[in-house]
C-alpha cells in the first residue's frame, strides 16, 4: 500500500532542492570569472542573471519551506531526481541568453545533455561561442559527471543518513570509503588531481600541435572535463577531428578510459592494490567486451574497405568504439559518415558498445560492465545447473574490490536495471521511427541518448521534431539516474493522489 506523502514530506523535499539550487548558483561564478577575464561583457551579464536567479529561487524555497528534518529514502531519491530537472532548467538560462539556441527547449536539451554527460548538442554556431560559454558547457559535464548531489554532499550537506539516500539516487550505490561524505570528497580529490594533470598534458600537446598557448590551455581544460567525465562536448563543431592530431586522440582515449573506471577501483589502485585491476569483474568484462566489439568492428570496416590502411582503421574504428563504450561521445568522423560509410556490422557494434557502457560508480553511462558481468556469470551458473548432476551444489562468486557471492537478489537487481535500459533504448527507437527516421539511425540515436554517450548519426539537430527532443531529454535524465530515483518520484506523485494517509519512514 502506498503512503500519501504529507505536506511535511514535500516541505523537506523543497528545502533540500533549495539548498542544491543555491549550490548551483554559486557554481555560476566560474564562467562569470572566465567572462570577466576575457572581457566577454555580454556573457558576464548572462551569468550574473543566471547566478542571481538561482540564488533567489534557492533561498526563497528554503525560506518558504524551512525544514530541519533528515530525509527518508523516498524524499532523498525525490530530491535527487527533481534536482536534475531543476539544474537543467537553470543551467539552460545562460545558454539561451547567449543567442546560440533557437529555443529554450534546445537550451534545456543541451543543459541536460551536459549535466547527464551525454554530449548530444543543439547549439548553433558553436565555432563562434565565447570562452565563458564553453566553460559553462564543459563545467556542466564536470559537475554532472561527479554528480550534482556529490557536489552538494561535499560542500552543502552534513554527514547524515539523508545524504546517503541522495547519493544512492544519483546512481552511486557504492561507497568508496566508509562514510558517504568522505566518498564524495574522494571523488572530488581524484577528479581534481586528474584535472590538473590531464589539462597540463592536453595543453602541451595542443601547443606543440600549433595552437596558441592560451587556446591550448582552454581547450585542454575543456576537453579534459568532457573526456574524463565521459561527456563528449567539445569547443569546436568538429569535436576531436578539429585538432587533426594523433597525440591528441591518444590523450583523449586515455582520459575516456580513466573516466570509465569505477571510483572504487581508482581508490584501490591509489592505495597500491594493483592486483585488483586484473581481478576485478568490471575490468575483465570491459576488456572482453571492448576487444570483441573492436574485432567485429574491424571486420565490418575492412569488409567494406572504409579506410585505406590499418592505421586509419585503428584511428577511426578504435577511437569511435572507445568513445562509445566509455559513454563519452568524442568523435573523429562526421555524424553522417556512420550511416553512409560504416555499414551495418560496424554500426551495430558501436550501438552495442554504447548500450553496454562503462563501470558502475564512474562517470560513464549505459547498462554498466558490472551488471553485464553479473548477468554473464548468472547465465553460466544456470547452464552449469542444467548440465551438472542434480545433487551438485553450484556456487558462483564475482570479484569486485572483494569476493561477493552471486546471490539471486544481486542478479535480480542487476537484471531490473538491465531490462529497464533495454526498454528505454527501444522506446526511444520507436519514437524515432514514428517521426520518420530509419530504424538503425533511430536505434543508434536513442541508445546514444539513454546511455549518455553523445555519438550521433545526424538525427540530433535543431530542426528535429520537438517530440523527439523531449524524448531524448527524458532518456538522458533516466539513463543518468538509472531509473530508481525517477520511479520513486513517479511513485510519490501517484501516492500523493491515491495513497493512504500515514507517515513514511
Amino acid at each position, binding site marked *: 500500500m502506498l503512503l500519501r506523502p504529507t505536506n511535511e514530506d514535500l516541505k523537506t523535499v523543497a528545502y533540500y532542492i533549495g539548498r542544491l539550487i543555491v549550490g548551483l548558483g554559486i557554481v555560476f561564478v566560474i564562467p562569470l570569472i572566465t567572462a570577466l577575464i576575457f572581457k*566577454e*561583457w*555580454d556573457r558576464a*551579464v*548572462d551569468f*550574473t*542573471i543566471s547566478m*542571481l*536567479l538561482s*540564488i*533567489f529561487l534557492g*533561498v*526563497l524555497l528554503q*525560506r518558504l519551506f524551512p525544514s530541519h528534518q533528515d530525509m527518508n529514502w523516498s524524499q532523498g531519491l525525490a530530491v535527487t531526481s527533481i534536482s536534475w530537472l531543476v539544474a537543467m532548467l537553470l543551467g539552460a538560462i545562460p545558454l539561451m*541568453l547567449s543567442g546560440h539556441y533557437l529555443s529554450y527547449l534546445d537550451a534545456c536539451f543541451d543543459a541536460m545533455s551536459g549535466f547527464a554527460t551525454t554530449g548530444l548538442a543543439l547549439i548553433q554556431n558553436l*565555432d*563562434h*561561442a*565565447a*570562452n565563458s560559454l564553453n566553460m559553462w558547457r564543459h563545467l556542466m559535464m564536470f559537475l554532472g559527471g561527479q554528480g550534482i548531489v556529490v557536489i552538494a554532499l561535499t560542500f552543502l550537506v552534513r554527514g547524515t543518513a539523508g545524504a546517503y539516500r541522495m547519493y544512492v539516487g544519483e546512481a552511486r550505490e557504492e561507497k568508496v570509503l566508509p562514510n558517504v561524505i568522505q566518498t564524495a570528497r574522494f571523488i572530488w580529490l581524484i577528479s581534481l588531481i586528474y584535472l590538473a594533470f590531464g589539462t597540463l598534458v592536453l595543453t602541451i600537446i595542443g601547443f606543440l*600541435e*600549433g*595552437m*596558441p598557448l592560451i*587556446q591550448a590551455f582552454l581547450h585542454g581544460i575543456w576537453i579534459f572535463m568532457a573526456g574524463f567525465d565521459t561527456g563528449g562536448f567539445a569547443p*569546436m*563543431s*568538429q569535436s576531436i*577531428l*578539429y*585538432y*587533426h592530431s*594523433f597525440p591528441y586522440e591518444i590523450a583523449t582515449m586515455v582520459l575516456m578510459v580513466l573516466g570509465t573506471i569505477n571510483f572504487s577501483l581508482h581508490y584501490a589502485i591509489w592505495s597500491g592494490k594493483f592486483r585488483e585491476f586484473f581481478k576485478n569483474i568490471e575490468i575483465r568484462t570491459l576488456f572482453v567486451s571492448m576487444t570483441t566489439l573492436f574485432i567485429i568492428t574491424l571486420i565490418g570496416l575492412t569488409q567494406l574497405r*572504409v*579506410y*585505406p*590502411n590499418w*592505421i*586509419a*582503421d585503428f*584511428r*577511426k574504428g578504435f577511437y569511435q568504439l572507445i568513445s562509445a563504450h566509455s559513454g563519452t561521445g568524442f568523435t*573523429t*568522423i*562526421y555524424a*553522417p*559518415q556512420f550511416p*553512409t*560509410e560504416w555499414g551495418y556490422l560496424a554500426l551495430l557494434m558501436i550501438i552495442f558498445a554504447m548500450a553496454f557502457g562503462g563501470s558502475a560508480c564512474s562517470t560513464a553511462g549505459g547498462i554498466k560492465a558490472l551488471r553485464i558481468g553479473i548477468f554473464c556469470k548468472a547465465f553460466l551458473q544456470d547452464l552449469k545447473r542444467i548440465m551438472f548432476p542434480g545433487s551438485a551444489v553450484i556456487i558462483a562468486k564475482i570479484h569486485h574490490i572483494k569476493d561477493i557471492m552471486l546471490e539471486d537478489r544481486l542478479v535480480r537487481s542487476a537484471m531490473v536495471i538491465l531490462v529497464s535500459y533495454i526498454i528505454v533504448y527501444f522506446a526511444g527507437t520507436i519514437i524515432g521511427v514514428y517521426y520518420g527516421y530509419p530504424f538503425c539511425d533511430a536505434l543508434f540515436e536513442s541508445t546514444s541518448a539513454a546511455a549518455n554517450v553523445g555519438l550521433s548519426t545526424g538525427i540530433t539537430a535543431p530542426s528535429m521534431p520537438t517530440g523527439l527532443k523531449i524524448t531524448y531529454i527524458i532518456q538522458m535524465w533516466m539513463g543518468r539516474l538509472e531509473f530508481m530515483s525517477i520511479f520513486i518520484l513517479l511513485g510519490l506523485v501517484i501516492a500523493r493522489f491515491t495513497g493512504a494517509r500515514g507517515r513514511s519512514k
Partner: protein
Amino acid sequence: MKLFVCLLFIICNLVIAAEAAPISSTELIENADLYSGKIVEFEGEAIGNVMVRGDHAWINVKDGVYAIGIWAKKEQALKIKQTGGYRHIGDKVLVTGTFYRADPQQGGDLDIRANQITIIQKGYKRKLTIKRSKFIIAAILFLACFIVIVYPYLIPKRKKKIT
C-alpha cells in the same frame, strides 16, 4: 545551324560554370565516395586556429554547415590573417585541392589537400552589444536576492512564552 551552335555554346558554358562552383560540405560528406581523389573547390570561413605542423598547416574551413580540415603548405595557410571565433568572423577563403574521403596520409581523416587558397573576403570584428533589458533584469534579481536573504533578519523574532 547558327542558333544550334550558340545554344550548345551557352549550355557548355553553363555546365562548366556549374562544375567550377564550390561544392558544399554537406555534398562532400554525404557523397564522399563520389568526390574522393578528385579536385574540388570549397568555400567558407576559416575558423579556430591555423595550426602549423612543420612546412604544412591545418586550417578548418566552415561553409555554414560543417567545417572541413584543409591540409595546406605553410605559406598558403599563413595567407589567412583572421580566423573566426567569438570576437571575429574569419577570412572567407576559396580552397582548391584534392578531396579525400579517408586520407591515407592523415589517419583516415576526411579532408582536402589544398593546392591553392584564395582569400575572397577579409575577416572582420563582430559587433557585440548587450541588451539593456538584461541589465534591468539583473538589477531586479539583485534586489530580489537582497530582500529574500535579508528579510528574516529584519523581522523581530517572536519570543517563546515560558509556561
